[in-house]
């Protein structure tokens, strides 16, 4: 029983972390059609900046988000203008081309990160990451709790933004029908750039959140990417709620199934769930 509660708690926290990576990824996929394989590499860089803010200047990684988030927003917008827009002008359907483009960027960034920060795995250590909290029968590390809070805040803000602001609604319109959105007077170029900027900003925050739970190194982006893909495909493109639910499902499937089977096989259960879902609903869980 205690084991199960523990697994459920961990599953929720891990799931939230996947979800926060997923919402940004899904946002740009929906609004611009770009499948950004560099998304989790951006998160890894966010994790490194948070780590080094602490290691070099003693600034808490969570506090460093004040700098990381706006900085990454600008990077994202710049990325859209410099690379995505030229691509969109060249190719009819941007999806697969963007996978290749962003994989290339991810590889470049990975090598740069290795050169600058070395390939050694890092783990953020602060006062609260070493603390342990008792929640009923379960124990949670302070790092995981803080990560969970960051994730919830980011997901909540993004949801609010998409539902309640003009720009957010414009992005949703863009997801449904780009040409129609343009005809209603939405500045597609600007909205897409902002969407990319926001995705990068959430990736930075996600990276910092994940760095409080897991060790990371430049190559970590691949495994994070796999989970992000999985969560977004499961949840559906352009839906914050769907992706969040999918993230929670993914987290819970892994932690609960590893109670009964070896950990290595737990991911396989997750892949199985994904394939089953796709057999029934080829566009993911969300209703579109």
């Amino acid at each position, binding site marked *: 029983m205690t084991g199960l509660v523990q697994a459920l708690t961990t599953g929720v926290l891990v799931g939230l972390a996947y979800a926060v990576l997923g919402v940004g990824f899904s946002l740009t996929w929906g609004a611009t059609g770009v499948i950004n394989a560099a998304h989790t590499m951006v998160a890894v860089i966010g994790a490194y900046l948070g780590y080094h803010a602490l290691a070099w200047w003693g600034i808490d990684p969570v506090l460093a988000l004040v700098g990381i988030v706006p900085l990454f927003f600008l990077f994202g917008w710049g990325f859209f203008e410099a690379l995505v827009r030229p691509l969109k002008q060249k190719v009819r359907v941007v999806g697969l081309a963007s996978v290749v483009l962003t994989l290339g960027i991810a590889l470049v960034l*990975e*090598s740069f990160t290795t050169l600058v920060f070395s390939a050694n795995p890092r783990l953020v250590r602060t006062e609260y990451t070493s603390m342990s909290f008792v929640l009923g029968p379960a124990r949670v590390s302070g790092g995981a709790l803080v990560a969970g809070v960051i994730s919830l805040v980011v997901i909540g803000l993004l949801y609010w933004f998409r539902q309640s602001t003009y720009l957010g609604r414009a992005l949703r319109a863009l997801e449904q029908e780009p040409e129609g959105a343009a005809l209603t007077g939405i500045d597609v170029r600007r909205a897409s750039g902002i969407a990319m900027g926001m995705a990068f900003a959430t990736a930075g925050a996600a990276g910092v959140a994940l760095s409080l739970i897991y060790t990371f190194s430049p190559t970590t982006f691949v495994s994070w990417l796999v989970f992000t893909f999985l969560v977004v495909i499961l949840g559906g493109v352009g839906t914050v709620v769907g992706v969040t639910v999918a993230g929670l499902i993914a987290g819970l499937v892994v932690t609960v199934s590893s109670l009964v089977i070896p950990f290595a096989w737990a991911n396989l259960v997750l892949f199985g769930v994904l394939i089953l879902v796709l057999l029934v609903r080829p566009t993911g869980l969300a209703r579109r």
Partner: protein
Amino acid sequence: MRRPSNRTTWILIAAVAVGVALLPFTGMSVYSMSVAFTVMFYAAVAVAWNILGGYSGYESFGHSAFVGIGAYTTAILLSEFGLSPLLTSFLGATLAALVAFIVGYPCLRLRGPYFALVTLVVSLAVSVVVVNLPGLNVASGIFVPSPAGSPVMTRFILYESIAAVFLICVVVARIIERSQLGIGLAAIREDEEVAATQGVPTTRLKMAAFVVSAALTGLAGGILSWSRGYLDPGDMFSVDTSVLIVLLALFGGRRSWIGPLIGAVVVTLGREFLFIVIGEDAAQILYGALLVVVILFMPHGLIGPRPRLGVEQEVAA
């Protein structure tokens, strides 16, 4: 544009095949034979990948799964029972085809990026299964005996084996290209719904292409493991391999077998060269930048078709 006639192409393929097979007799060094091995391995898998990814447009990002299946089949049978990969690689190809057949049905229902991402996930699932399967002892690594005692002989055998696989891939790809299957796949690539309404059995053709592509990739993987003294788990299944295969085909152009072939030769040789000249990290950066340049400035590859009027030039944001 006039296409080269059927006969011309076959004569060309035969001539190149004979040339490639005889090349080691001109006194190639061990090093150049091993470079040639890498080039031909990648050319073989890129041509094989293209049977699905290029002809039908279903771009798999999980072909390392089939490389891995082929590789481990021959490696295990060689190290445990001493069976030659020249025979067992065909078993590896069969196994790869079988796996493709099983995962093909759910995967091929998905389109474009969904298909790409799911094949990536499937390849990871396959690697989890193979590495953790009890009784195979893959996780602790496998030592693979080399084909012959002397390095020259070893490299020579490997060279000729991969050359044979490479030739098989080219011949199969070329046959499919001009067959009814190839025409059906092209119809699927252009517009799957229209193809289906015209009576093209889309599911069957996609499955056929996927299975053949997987089998050929498995075959090449079977020979690849023979060239490694030691198989590190995860090495054979790496996502990098899957991505590289896609890049080679994209770089060369996907409409015909010759595109991936040229892409593989240029990129593999280029990488080898860069590794030596500027070191691994810098080479990786250039390699990533190459992906970006290729996709931005020549989205149809080195020898891709010119965009036809009106079709490829719809407006985007």
